[in-house]
């Protein structure tokens, strides 16, 4: 029996679904995804040459793929925001995420000073009651988003265009919110560590991370190893899922900047 005959025999015998699943491109995609997940699982935010090597590889790959849960898409974001594709999260499932964050602020720190890192168009502020926060500062690197947010600003809120990695706030905050933003940073753990100095004693971080992103999941695991979670919740709909965590830094936040 020749090879060609064998091939045709196999093709004739196997069901279409199996053939499709065994297609070389499928297999390659599976292999790549598995490797990607494994790299994040074992090497993300760790020291050592191997971790650095894989980190470089992965970030290059992410850049090529244009993944939305990876850093380095600032220009794309600027363009999208200018084109107003991110105008409103009308989706009710997105809204529930904002409600949960607002609920945490109201329940844990009523009348808090809130810093919203990566605030976008300031949608979180809209979910806050008058009684929830006494001061709100929102930063985002996207100029267009900040312009839109500033239209809604009132006397207790302030919006500014700044990069999260080198922003230097004046004063401390009871709550620092990272709403779907940490995994978009190059070095999220260092950023989180940096913001600890602007946390009031007993203050909390509230982070939200997208449940379906490998990078966000790996990051969340690392964060939970370093911080203690006061509370964590998963909000999910048919399409999306988000982890929302309330974190304390122990007594590290009390140190002076």
């Amino acid at each position, binding site marked *: 029996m020749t090879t060609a005959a064998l091939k045709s025999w196999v093709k004739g015998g196997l069901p279409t679904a199996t053939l499709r699943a065994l297609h070389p491109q499928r297999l390659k995609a599976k292999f790549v995804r598995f490797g990607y997940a494994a790299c994040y699982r074992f090497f993300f935010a760790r020291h050592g040459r191997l971790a650095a090597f894989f980190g470089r590889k992965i970030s290059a790959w992410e850049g090529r793929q244009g993944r939305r849960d990876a850093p380095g898409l600032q220009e794309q974001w600027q363009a999208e925001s200018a084109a107003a594709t991110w105008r409103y999260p009308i989706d*009710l499932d997105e809204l*529930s995420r904002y409600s*949960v964050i607002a*609920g945490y602020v109201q329940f844990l720190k009523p009348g808090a000073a809130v810093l919203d890192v990566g605030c976008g168009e300031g949608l979180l502020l809209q*979910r806050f009651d008058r009684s929830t926060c006494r001061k709100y500062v929102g930063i985002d690197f996207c100029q267009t988003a900040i312009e839109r947010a500033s239209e809604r600003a009132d006397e207790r809120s302030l919006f500014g265009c700044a990069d999260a990695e080198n922003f230097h706030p004046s004063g401390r905050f009871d709550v620092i919110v990272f709403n779907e933003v940490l995994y978009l940073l190059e070095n999220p753990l260092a950023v989180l560590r940096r913001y600890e100095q602007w946390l009031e004693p007993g203050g909390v971080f509230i982070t939200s991370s997208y449940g379906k992103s490998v990078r966000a999941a790996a990051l969340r695991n690392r964060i939970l190893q370093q911080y203690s979670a006061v*509370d964590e919740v*998963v*909000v*999910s*709909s048919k399409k999306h899922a988000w982890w929302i965590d309330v974190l304390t830094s122990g007594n590290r936040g009390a140190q002076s900047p």
Partner: protein
Amino acid sequence: MAFSARGFTEPPLQLGAQLRYGYEQLWRAAYYRLCFGGSTRLARRWGDAVRRLEAELKSGDAPRPQSVWEAEYGKAAWRNLARLEELNRYSVIAGSIAFLKQNGSVLDVGCGEALLLSYLGENIGRYVGVDLAQAAIDRALRRHPAASFIQADAQIYVPDQCFDVIVFNEVLYYLVEPMAALVRYESRLAPGGFFIASLYEKSMRARAIRRKIGARYRSFCELRVSAHGKSWSIHMFGPKPPRRVCASLRRLLFSAKPKAPL
């Protein structure tokens, strides 16, 4: 000492009793899968038997008499609803109401101590809370002296006004005939109004109700909130738009272009 659904303090069940318990639960699950909400004679009789069993086992997700509610609220057994783990559910419900119906009117069926009202804050027009237990209403009034509360059985109570949002927050599975109750409250929805129901995921009765809701209503948002090993599904749904039989027929018969070739 064994952990069980019946608590830590009770001694573990004997093998026979365990088998019996498992059989009862299976039988109950079969009812909720196959016959729940049906109108046949079998469904009614099986339903009665399941109800009797639930009363005997004191299931946490089944109808219970008013005296139980009064006693529990009297000794503040439901105080833990104000704790952190239940917070997310309330914030999601309140946030959705505030977003979809700014300054809308809200009927909170089974309001308990009216915890939802404190989450709603100032974004709300009119709020009416209904609860079976007078003890709960007393507590709610202590929290919110200005709000209006009514002591009534949700299964027979008919509100005299229409509401934009009717909330059933962890309450549907305590009603003997939840679907009938929903249908009755439907007439009290203002135009464009909707229901919000939160249902505990682990309860088979709640899951059966959820399936029924999916079949009967148009659900525009289904969320799941999981925290502390528990999860709740939150549904927002409204009446289905009326089916335009004539229009569909006309389209089918006389439309110039067929929809898609078969």
